[in-house]
């Protein structure tokens, strides 16, 4: 019996072979037009404000030329902030995808109480990021009354002061905990549409479980994983609440990413011009990251 190559099937679907013509644009128009307004109007305003020297508490706005951009690009912290942003995207991404794959595989097969256990795994996603961060900060990470400190003292270790010595890691842990359910859910749903016959065929051909996984399951998951990575890029680029509630971007600028930078340097001072300029900069960085992804993942999408 021939082992079906799933990638061939998917490649076939790429060529334009639809014989039925349908009018594409009426279907696309609603969402596109709505998003266009949502994108264009704030963007235009933001661009306009980025050229104004405008502090909300000390009005009025005066034309400032490039003053905001100059301020932004002469900020010694900017490289660190960009680096932090990337770390905060790729760190949780790595963890959530690996764990998501593992959990999805785990929950794909039946066992008693599976639906309850599965709901438990998804629970973190129900919690607001602000609350989740506070829970981790106070109940787990705190070196005096946190559970981790208590466990560390039990085995005779000095409790780790997470937010002083490993602030970035702490934030990555919190974000990963919050988003692993998302990754699990997407991959689990994708696994459930996997053709069981292919796996059976492979098994009967004598393929071991590991190679079954690599050659049958993983290719099937290429697209969901690609979509997952794109979506997580969006979410993790805008990590904000978790930082606000725990480290406030510190110590120093150790956990300041671009959204938090906008908040603390611009919004906190009610400098609308600077906030707008930094917003434009954020879009620039995000587009670069996305470009990198699209280059590498476009066949999968």
């Amino acid at each position, binding site marked *: 019996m021939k082992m079906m190559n799933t990638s061939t*099937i998917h490649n076939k*679907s790429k060529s*334009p072979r639809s014989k*039925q013509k349908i009018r*594409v644009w009426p*279907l*696309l128009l*609603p*969402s*596109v037009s*709505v998003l266009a307004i*949502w994108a264009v109007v704030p*963007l235009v305003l*933001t661009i306009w404000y980025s050229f104004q020297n405008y502090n909300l508490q000390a009005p009025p706005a005066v034309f400032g030329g490039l003053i905001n951009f100059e301020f932004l690009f002469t900020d010694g912290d900017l490289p660190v902030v960009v680096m932090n942003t990337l770390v905060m995207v790729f760190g949780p991404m790595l963890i959530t995808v690996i764990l998501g794959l593992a*959990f999805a595989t*785990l929950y794909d*097969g*039946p*066992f008693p109480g599976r*639906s309850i*256990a*599965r709901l*438990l795994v998804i*629970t*973190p996603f*129900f*919690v*607001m990021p*602000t609350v*989740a961060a*506070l*829970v981790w900060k106070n*109940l787990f990470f705190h070196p005096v*009354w946190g*559970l981790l400190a208590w466990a560390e003292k039990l085995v005779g270790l000095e409790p780790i002061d997470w937010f002083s010595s490993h602030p970035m890691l702490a934030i990555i842990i919190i974000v990963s*905990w919050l988003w692993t359910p998302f990754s699990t*859910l*997407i991959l689990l*749903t994708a696994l*459930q*549409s996997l*053709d*069981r*016959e292919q796996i059976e065929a492979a098994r009967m051909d004598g393929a071991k479980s590991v190679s079954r996984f690599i050659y049958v399951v993983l290719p099937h998951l290429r*697209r969901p994983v690609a*979509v997952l990575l794109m*979506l997580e890029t*969006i979410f993790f680029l*805008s990590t*904000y609440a978790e930082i606000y*509630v725990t480290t406030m971007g510190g110590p120093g600028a150790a956990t300041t990413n671009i*959204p938090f930078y906008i908040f603390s340097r611009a*919004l906190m001072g009610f400098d609308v011009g600077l*906030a707008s300029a930094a*917003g434009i900069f*954020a*879009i620039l960085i995000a*587009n670069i990251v*996305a470009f990198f992804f*699209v280059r590498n993942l476009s066949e999968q999408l």
Partner: protein
Amino acid sequence: MSRAKSEKIDLLRMILGWFVGILMAFPVFWMALAAFKTEQDAASIPPKLFFSPTLENFVAMNERVDYVRHAWNSIVVSASSTLIAIALAAPAAYVMAFYATKSTRKLMLWMLSIRFMPAVGVLIPIYLILVHFNLIDTKFALIVITCLSNLPIIVWMLYSYFKEVPVEILEAARMDGARPLRQLRYLLIPLTAPGFASTALLGVILAWNEAFWCINITATEAGTLALAIASFANSEGQFWAKLSAASLASVGPIFIFGWITQRQLVRGLTFGAVK
């Protein structure tokens, strides 16, 4: 595969499945526990596992914020924004999945890129627009903004689920003479039902937990539970038990909703059945 080995794997699966589930949910469980402690118990060093429970935090919560109003706003905003987003997204995702061209691809990526602008950067301009149209503190504004924020995500998720459908099935139906609408009704929707369900679930959760816009553009009328929780964060003095109570009261409804829609996911279809 031998029987013994298959049983061993099932046992392992069960043990791991439960262990992982409990581990992941533990922080939430701990928070839920704190909701029933007095402030002193909640703050005690070392943490207390046994204590005498009380409902005083929930009472205090309702004195400060109108729980029913906030919960209702949460339900209305999450449900409306998600439904509208799905209604707008499904046709677009359909086109991009089955009639993909280079320009539709570019469109997809452009949609995603809209989400790149951080909300903090655009807060003041949006606020000014809303003030101009008298939309501050209205559910309408919150629904629109939440819907638009989540729309790109929902388009992409539906697209990915549509792409899962093997084209041969649609081809076969087409060659049997079925028109697009029939395809949709009898094939596509049943095949992608779990995808719709999980997209709806995720959309609702994203909307439910949307805090930034909620806090910044509402006041006393249109606030959702996210705002109610903000009332209890970080005040002077002890707040941990009350915050846990408010969070539990917010997580509760969405948890139940998750449980209900999760059953849809359980019904994962095998293609053997369809064929």
